[in-house]
C-alpha cells in the first residue's frame, strides 16, 4: 500500500486516481525520492486541458518508454485517460547545485561571477524551485518538507524582482525613444510588454515565485483581495485594454497612452523599491 499523503480533494477535483497515476511509473513509498504534484493545476491556474506534472526528486530513474532530457532532468511522458502526465525526475546532485546557486546569488549587477543578473539562475531551475515550494505531496511527504527547507524563497522572490526591474528599465528606455520618434505601432506593443513586466514584478514583490508568463494575470488576480493589489490589477487591465485603433490613428491619444503606461510602471516600481 502506498503512503498516500496527497490532498485528496485536489485529486478528486482533477478526477485522478492516485494509485493509477503512480503506477504509470511504478512509484511507491519505497521510492527513494520526494514525489509530488506540481504545475499549474496544483496552484489553481490551469484548465481541463492542462498537463499533470509529477515531480520525483531524489534517487529514482524513469521507467516509461517515452523519456527525454529536460535541462538537467529527465521527463517521462504518459497519458492517463485524456490527460497527459509528465513525470519529471531530478537528481539530488542537480538540486544541491541549484541550492548552492541560490544561496550564493548576488542580487545586484556586480558580483564575483560577473554574469548578467538574469542569467544567474535558469528559468527551468526557477520553475523547479517554485514547484517544490507549491508541490502537493504524493509520496514521502517529509522529504518534500525537507527539500523546501533547503531554499530561501524570499531570496528567490527578491532576485526575481531585481530581474524584472531591469526588464522594466529596458522597456522604459525603449519607450522614451519611441515617443521621441513617433514610432506608433512598436510603441503600443512595447507599452504592453511594459505592463506585463510590471505585473510580473509586482507579483514577485508580493512573494510569488511563479515565472510562467502566461499566468501573470491570474496570479495578480489572486493577490487582488487587498486594496493595493486590487488597484494595480485595475490599472493593469485598464491600460492593457485601451482601444487599439484610436491609439494608432490619433497621435495625441497614443502619446498619452504611452505616458500613462510609463507612469503606471513608475508608480508600481516606487512601491516595490520603497
Amino acid at each position, binding site marked *: 500500500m502506498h503512503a498516500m499523503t496527497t490532498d485528496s480533494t485536489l485529486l478528486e477535483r482533477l478526477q485522478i486516481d492516485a494509485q493509477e497515476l503512480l503506477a504509470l511509473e511504478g512509484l511507491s513509498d519505497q521510492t527513494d525520492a520526494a514525489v509530488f504534484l506540481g504545475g499549474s493545476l496544483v496552484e489553481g491556474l490551469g484548465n481541463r486541458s492542462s498537463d499533470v506534472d509529477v515531480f520525483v526528486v531524489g534517487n529514482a530513474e524513469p521507467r516509461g518508454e517515452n523519456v527525454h532530457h529536460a535541462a538537467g532532468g529527465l521527463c517521462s511522458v504518459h497519458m492517463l485517460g485524456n490527460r497527459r502526465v509528465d513525470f519529471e525526475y531530478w537528481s539530488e546532485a542537480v538540486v544541491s547545485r541549484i541550492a548552492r546557486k541560490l544561496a550564493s546569488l548576488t542580487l545586484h549587477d556586480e558580483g564575483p561571477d560577473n554574469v548578467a543578473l538574469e542569467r544567474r539562475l535558469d528559468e527551468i531551475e526557477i520553475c523547479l524551485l517554485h514547484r517544490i515550494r507549491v508541490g502537493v505531496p504524493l509520496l514521502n511527504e517529509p522529504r518534500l518538507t525537507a527539500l523546501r527547507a533547503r531554499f530561501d524563497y524570499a531570496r528567490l522572490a527578491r532576485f526575481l524582482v531585481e530581474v524584472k*526591474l531591469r526588464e522594466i528599465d529596458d522597456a522604459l528606455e525603449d519607450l*522614451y525613444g519611441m515617443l521621441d520618434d513617433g514610432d506608433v505601432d512598436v510603441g503600443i506593443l512595447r507599452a504592453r510588454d511594459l505592463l506585463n513586466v510590471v505585473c510580473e514584478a509586482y507579483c514577485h514583490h508580493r512573494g510569488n515565485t511563479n515565472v510562467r508568463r502566461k499566468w501573470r494575470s491570474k496570479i495578480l488576480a489572486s493577490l487582488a483581495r487587498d486594496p493595493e493589489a486590487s488597484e494595480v490589477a485595475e490599472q493593469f487591465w485598464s491600460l492593457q485594454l485601451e482601444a487599439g485603433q484610436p491609439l494608432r490613428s490619433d497621435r495625441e491619444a497614443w502619446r498619452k497612452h504611452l505616458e500613462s503606461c510609463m507612469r503606471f510602471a*513608475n508608480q508600481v*516600481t516606487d512601491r516595490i523599491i520603497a
Partner: protein
Amino acid sequence: VSTLTERDVPVQSVRVRRRRYGKRICLILDNHYFDLDEVTDAIWTSCDGASSVAEIGERLHQGRGWALGPAVQATIATLAVLAREGLVTLVAGTAKTMEPLGSPTGVKS
C-alpha cells in the same frame, strides 16, 4: 523656475525613474543619475501630482518634526532643483509668491 508658490503642484516627469542600489537612491533621467538623500527622496515621493508645495512641506514638517517654516523652505529649495533638472514640472498655482530660491542640497548629479 525662479519662484515657486505654495499652491504650485509638482508633477514627477514620466521619464524619470527612481531606483535603489543598496542604500543609494537615485533618480534616472535619460542617462543622468541623481543621488538623493533621505529628505529629497521624501519630497520626491510626495510629488504625486495632487499635492501642492505647501502640502508637501507640511508633510515634511509632520513626518520629521521640523518646524513648519524650515520644512517648507527645504521643500521649495529642493523642488526648485528638481524642476531645474527636468525631474519635475510645476503646475502653476495662484497663491502668494514664495521667497526666491536658495541653494538646496540633497540632489547631486
